[in-house]
């Protein structure tokens, strides 16, 4: 079998292929070099920065309302599944340190149809995730307005949508025109968030374990320790873990990818899982199930208020705004890389990856990210957006595990990962089963929307690019 991609799309464009040499510092092509500039801290900031916004600041109220204190177990299940996928993803990424992440691994391991479906689903999955983060941002901004004494009239929902849409437009424009070094800003925000959360957790743990009494409100505890509900909440909150694979979308720009990619992906999952489980433990200790249900998307603000009064509420609001912004921004960046990956392989028109010389930014791809994000953000359907995002990512995660098994079985010459998942096929197989299995616990309507998206992407492949062959090509 040829190791070159073959075929052309409906416009007659062939995949762009070239022999490259990867070193720790650069990718060397025939005529040019591509500098690797993102270090381990940058990789961790992408992983943690994408994940931490949704999970800690939006879900405690929603998840606690369903199962009470058992929500900590739901977050634990999500973390374990994420780790089971992060290990195989690390192996694939060290063997193929390229832009595009999951799309790249699946198109080379399982063929062009699966690749196209995942490449386009990664784009749309990130669009759903970004819209979810922006709606979370809207809820936090609304609470912030209330805290500084601005009360909104009869339709707070409209305000949330409005803020989400304006923020979506803002981030898109910022990404097209902003050429300042936002990576350093992102690193700073992540560091600030982690320290704020640690302080909050320390105080909350002291309260939860009875060392201090913050005078938490009375309520009726209804903790639901049952497999079904815990898994169902795990499916809902899995959106909190979508960031680790985004590290793979910048794999082509990571320094020493053989070392930094596994550390950044696995490290960010472990750190974030620990933070989530502890936060949920605190949240469900301070507020019982019915109190969490009443507080909704911004329950964390009420918990901060119960623990530390108005300053506590303020800290959580600022943290929530920063975290949802950081998630939204990191996701828009990943989206544009996902679009570039498929466009380079001629599965989308080449113009989708055009960049402009004025700002040097991929304005078309950023527009293809920002446009649908704005439409979805206006719907304000937190749960639906989160679950569809999770659905599309879980399909990708499951297929990445399958791709790892398939590539290992084929043993192609080019496959030489620096990091190998121990235990043979056990972890990837469990990872695949867990990823696909979690989908079964989702809301049926979310599953229908997700399947619709997958169907549309498969239709696109048969219409646009059915002659292209990518399997086995590096």
């Amino acid at each position: 079998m040829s190791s070159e991609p073959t075929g052309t799309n409906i416009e007659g464009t062939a995949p762009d292929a070239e022999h490259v040499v990867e070193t720790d510092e650069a990718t060397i092509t025939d005529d040019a070099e591509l500098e690797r500039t993102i270090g381990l801290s940058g990789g961790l900031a992408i992983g943690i920065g994408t994940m931490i916004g949704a999970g800690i600041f939006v879900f405690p109220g929603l998840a606690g309302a369903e199962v009470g204190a058992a929500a900590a177990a739901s977050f634990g299940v999500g973390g374990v599944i994420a780790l089971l996928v992060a290990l195989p993803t690390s192996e694939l990424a060290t063997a193929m340190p390229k832009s595009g992440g999951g799309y790249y691994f699946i198109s080379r391991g399982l063929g062009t149809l699966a690749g196209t479906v995942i490449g386009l689903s990664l784009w749309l999955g990130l669009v759903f995730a970004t819209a979810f983060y922006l709606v979370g941002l809207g809820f936090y901004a609304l609470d912030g307005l209330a805290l500084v004494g601005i009360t909104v009239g009869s339709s707070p929902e409209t305000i949330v949508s409005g803020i989400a849409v304006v923020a979506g437009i803002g981030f898109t424009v910022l990404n097209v025109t902003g050429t300042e070094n936002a990576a350093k800003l992102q690193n700073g925000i992540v560091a600030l968030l982690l320290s704020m959360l640690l302080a909050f957790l320390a105080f909350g743990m002291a309260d939860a374990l009875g060392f201090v009494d913050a005078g938490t409100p009375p309520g009726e505890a209804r903790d639901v320790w049952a497999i079904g509900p815990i898994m169902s909440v795990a499916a809902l909150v899995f959106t909190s873990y979508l960031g680790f694979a985004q590290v793979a979308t910048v794999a082509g720009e990571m320094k020493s990818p053989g070392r930094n990619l596994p550390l950044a992906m696995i490290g960010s999952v472990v750190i974030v899982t620990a933070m989530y489980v502890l936060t949920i433990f605190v949240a469900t200790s301070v507020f019982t199930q019915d109190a969490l249900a009443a507080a909704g998307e911004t329950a964390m603000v009420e918990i901060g208020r119960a623990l530390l009064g108005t300053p506590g509420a303020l800290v959580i609001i600022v943290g929530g705004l920063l975290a949802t912004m950081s998630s939204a921004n990191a996701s828009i960046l990943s989206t544009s890389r996902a679009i570039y990956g498929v466009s380079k392989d001629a599965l989308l028109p080449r113009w989708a990856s055009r960049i402009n010389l004025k700002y040097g930014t991929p304005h078309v791809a950023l527009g293809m990210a920002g446009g649908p994000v704005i439409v979805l953000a206006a719907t304000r359907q937190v749960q639906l957006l989160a679950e569809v995002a999770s659905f599309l990512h879980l399909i990708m995660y499951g297929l990445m595990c399958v791709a790892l098994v398939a590539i290992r079985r084929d043993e192609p010459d080019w496959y030489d990962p620096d990091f190998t998942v121990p235990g043979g096929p056990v972890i990837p197989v469990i990872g695949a089963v867990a990823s696909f299995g979690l989908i079964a616990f989702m809301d049926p309507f979310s599953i229908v929307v997700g399947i619709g998206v997958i169907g549309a992407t498969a239709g696109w492949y048969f219409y646009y690019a059915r002659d292209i062959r990518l399997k086995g090509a590096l």
Partner: protein
Amino acid sequence: MTRVLVPVEVLAGKTVSPGLMQLLGTVDVTVLGYHVLPEQTPPDQARLQYEERATAALEDLGQEFRTAGGAADHRLVFTHDREQTVDRIADEVGARALAISGVTGDIDSLLVSLSGDVAVDRILDFVIEVIGDREIGVTLLLAGQPEAGSDGRLDTAASQLREAGIDVETSVSTGSPFESLMDSVPNHDAIVMGESAPSLRSLVFGDESERVAAASVGPVLVVRSDEPSDDEAV
């Protein structure tokens, strides 16, 4: 032979002045064509779009070097981080010095800064090699608070250059190395300095405006403080 790296922001229409090309006629030259991208853009995406245009511009530059009597090969890099790229390529080609181009005609006089904690011998060796047997005068500048033995440094350096047949003047200043250098610029065509002088490093590695300032005073040659051993150089 001594190699000098000339970083050029090739897609921004930057080029190398004819005076600098002539000055570097006695040494090997690598032109580093680079293009800095914001983090939103994968370097590979820019390569796909701009590689041909950048390569053509670099080939034109190589032709101009040959016309000016020298020779140059080139590397093309798409990057998010200019400093990291310049450092890496300088290491890989084993460059003794970096040059940033500035507006200049023929180069008849060099301003050589020995201020700060720099490897004086490496700077002098480089100056002697670049000048060769040409009629180019040198002003040695030592600025900053005088330390024990710093007068001796200037005199020893001056006699070392005179032995090589170079016309030398010396200048001492107690002002800051950067300001003294800028004050002495008007009577000279190009600057030579050591990389390890921290206050001068920004001329090459600083932000855009600092580098523009450097370019406006004419070409600046920065002698690197260390170079990799021969087996590391590619």
